[in-house]
């Protein structure tokens, strides 16, 4: 029960973080592009809605879903006996498969093979970068623990 509550809180926090990050990003873009009104997403996305308010609500839903997605997939790293590589690959696959339709719906990039390829490449590179950092930190951690073990055995 305690665990369930913790997870629920984690997911709720994820959804609200998604809304926060999404809102601030949209606000920054609206300011940078000197928009007359707040643009929750690309103008093409906003034009699908009858009112501006509807577009904001739809964007809020997308931001919350993205937040939920990433806080939910973070749980993959808590699976005890999966290797870090397996966790990273599964996290990548789930995030890519669920995040891509949301990004397309939000109109973050045009749907054509060039953009999709570029988007996929960026997605893969981010994960490769994180995996390199991750594996280096694992090596450093093991080295440090081994030094502590040697120190302990010398004292025994």
């Amino acid at each position: 029960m305690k665990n369930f509550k913790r997870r629920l809180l984690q997911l709720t926090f994820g959804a609200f973080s998604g809304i926060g990050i999404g809102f601030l990003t949209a606000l920054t873009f609206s300011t940078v592009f000197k928009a007359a009104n707040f643009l929750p997403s690309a103008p093409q996305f906003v034009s699908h809605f009858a009112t501006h308010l509807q577009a904001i609500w739809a964007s809020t839903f997308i931001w919350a879903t993205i937040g939920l997605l990433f806080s939910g997939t973070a749980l993959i790293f808590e699976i005890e006996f999966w290797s870090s590589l397996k966790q990273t690959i599964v996290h990548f696959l789930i995030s890519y498969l669920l995040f891509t339709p949301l990004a397309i719906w939000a109109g973050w990039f045009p749907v054509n093979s060039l953009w999709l390829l570029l988007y996929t490449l960026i997605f893969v590179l981010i994960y490769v970068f994180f995996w390199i950092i991750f594996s280096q930190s694992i090596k450093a951690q093991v080295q440090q623990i081994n030094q502590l073990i040697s120190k302990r055995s010398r004292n025994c």
Partner: protein
Amino acid sequence: MHVKFNISPRFSIPFISINTKTESADLLQLGRNIERLISKRLIVGQSGAKTVPIPLYQIIRFQTAEKHVVCETIEATYRVKYRIYELAKLLEKDDFIQISSSEIINLNFLANLSASPSGVYQVNFTTGKHSYISRRFMTKLRKELLK
């Protein structure tokens, strides 16, 4: 170091004392080692119908095997009546540390750690056997070794 027996009817309960001019880290460790050797801390294990008292210092690890908790010594493996979380609490002041939700190890049998290329942390015992530590317990292990 010279070992001397001091026999007298005054000593109703036998005890060991270390006589020295100054206290040193080596001597303090020797004291701890003697204490561990003569420790009355035992755990009751079962091997078939036989009930065996096992001194804690002889135990390499406790682990869950086929829904039961067993303890492993160099000679044999015994079934114990405790759950892993109960043992973790019971042994927190001893040289034992939990390395996963299903295993507790004796730090005195810990040789080193290694990591596989895919990022699995392996615990290597002085007995040549090995096990796995989950990332969640790595921080606890580090803290314990820093003590």
